[in-house]
């Protein structure tokens, strides 16, 4: 049964598979030609690879188009047309919006957008918020620092586009934000998973407010993988007594994926984005469900600084299940399961930090925060984890310890040194958390 009342655009969201693919191919040809004709960077890259826009006739041809990595963007920026360099496809006077990446993985990347691009950003977010049942009668709070990082900026405009009343909670501390949410009877808010849990903590401990009493109906999370990690999602939903929806996007890409009201996993907006999954070892494109690979993504309508076959390094896999909403946008299994550049070898075993979060957050006797440190003693790697035991569970410490040891071993194939810290003593994070510290490179 198709739930068209959940669709921002029922025409696109119910497009049969073969038509969706035809649309993607047609749009890919168009954006490639646009970049070839208007950006020196793209022109020379494609020319050097022996590719002309007219060569792209099938999906097989798309595979031959060179990929773009973030490091390539960094190397051409801070040059004329200043500061974007040769990737820019429009005259500078058409750029109306500047944002930049957070710089988590290195030098920030500048992101120019025209007004059309900015409308497109909001449009892509609107697909997700509408599918999560944000409606005109919602009063939506945005507790983030409105600054150069894209964060939830486009979500703000998407919520306005839907007709919600939007409250910008910019330069306020967490207590002020919570009190404003209480005062204005907000029905929804958007934040990183870390901040959603942190706000609940602050409400209880600093303000004596039970977050469940704030009557929040829905929360959309982005910026970290927690929304698709069952244990973390459960903690957020229980803390706020609200439905939590995951969302994925990136400054250089756009708002490419999100959950619908059925919470069956992340849908990909396949009308706006072409998502390819590439086998990490062979480079082969994976079309079947159940095989993990690295995401290569194209934003099909973004014009100022096109995103064509961008190597996002997110690890994803297609889900063979269909969502009950009836959308033809395919689902990803388990959301973004990690990042290729986060996966590291410890004691010869490949480790993704998200698997550690999955374990800690699935043990209710443990508090939300944890910290992992990898060091080297001589030639041997050593991995430690600090966790906080809920003070009320002190008498169950031995059983919790056994459970944590077993689950960590099961999910990561590693034995951890486990240290219990006093409740509330581990660092709390406001936006994106950095709970994984690999100190081996510094030693």
């Amino acid at each position, binding site marked *: 049964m198709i739930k*068209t009342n959940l669709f921002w655009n029922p*025409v696109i969201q119910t497009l049969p598979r073969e038509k969706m693919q035809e649309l993607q191919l047609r749009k890919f040809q168009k954006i490639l030609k646009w970049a070839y004709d208007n950006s020196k960077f793209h022109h020379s890259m494609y020319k050097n690879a022996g590719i002309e826009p007219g060569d792209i006739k099938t999906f097989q041809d798309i595979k031959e188009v060179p990929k773009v990595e973030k490091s390539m963007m960094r190397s051409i920026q801070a040059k004329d047309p200043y500061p974007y360099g040769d990737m820019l496809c429009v005259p500078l006077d058409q750029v109306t919006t500047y944002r930049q990446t957070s710089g988590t993985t290195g030098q920030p990347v500048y992101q120019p957008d025209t007004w059309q691009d900015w409308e497109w950003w909001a449009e892509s977010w609107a697909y997700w918020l509408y599918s999560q049942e944000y409606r005109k009668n919602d009063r939506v709070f945005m507790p983030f620092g409105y600054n150069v990082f894209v964060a939830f900026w486009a979500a703000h405009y998407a919520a306005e586009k839907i007709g919600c009343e939007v409250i910008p909670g910019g330069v306020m501390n967490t207590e002020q934000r919570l009190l404003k949410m209480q005062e204005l009877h907000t029905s929804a808010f958007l934040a990183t998973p870390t901040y959603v849990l942190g706000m609940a903590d602050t409400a209880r401990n600093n303000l004596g407010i039970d977050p469940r009493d704030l009557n929040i109906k829905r929360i959309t999370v982005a910026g970290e993988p927690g929304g698709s990690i069952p244990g973390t999602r459960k903690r957020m939903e229980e803390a706020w007594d609200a439905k939590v929806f995951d969302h994925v996007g990136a400054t250089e890409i756009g708002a490419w994926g999100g959950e619908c009201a059925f919470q069956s996993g992340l849908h990909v907006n396949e009308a706006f984005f072409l998502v390819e999954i590439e086998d990490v070892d062979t480079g082969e494109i994976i079309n079947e469900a159940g095989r993990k690979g690295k995401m290569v993504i194209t934003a099909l309508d973004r014009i100022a600084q096109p995103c064509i076959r961008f190597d996002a390094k997110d690890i994803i896999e297609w889900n063979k299940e269909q969502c009950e909403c009836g959308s033809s946008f395919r689902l990803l299994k388990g959301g973004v399961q990690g990042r290729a550049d986060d996966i590291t070898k410890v004691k010869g075993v490949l480790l993704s930090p998200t698997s550690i979060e999955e374990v800690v957050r699935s043990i209710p006797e443990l508090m939300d925060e944890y910290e992992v440190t990898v060091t080297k003693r001589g030639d041997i790697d050593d991995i430690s984890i600090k966790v906080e035991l809920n003070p009320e569970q002190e008498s169950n410490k031995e059983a919790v310890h056994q459970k944590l040891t077993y689950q960590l071993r099961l999910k990561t194939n590693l034995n951890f040194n486990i240290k219990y810290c006093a409740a509330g003593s581990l660092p709390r994070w406001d936006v994106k958390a950095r709970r994984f510290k690999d100190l081996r490179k510094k030693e």
Partner: protein
Amino acid sequence: MDYDISDMAKRISLLKKEALELKEKAESIPAVECNIDRILASIKMLEINISDIVGL
């Protein structure tokens, strides 16, 4: 629900034509030119949502 996509696309194209003609007539009236630029960006979203589907 069945939608007449072709007819909707035709109307979107008329909107765009009107907006472009208005922009041309209003040369050097920033209040018109700049607002038309915003209208054109919104029309582009209509094209992405509707017109691009025509002919599939």
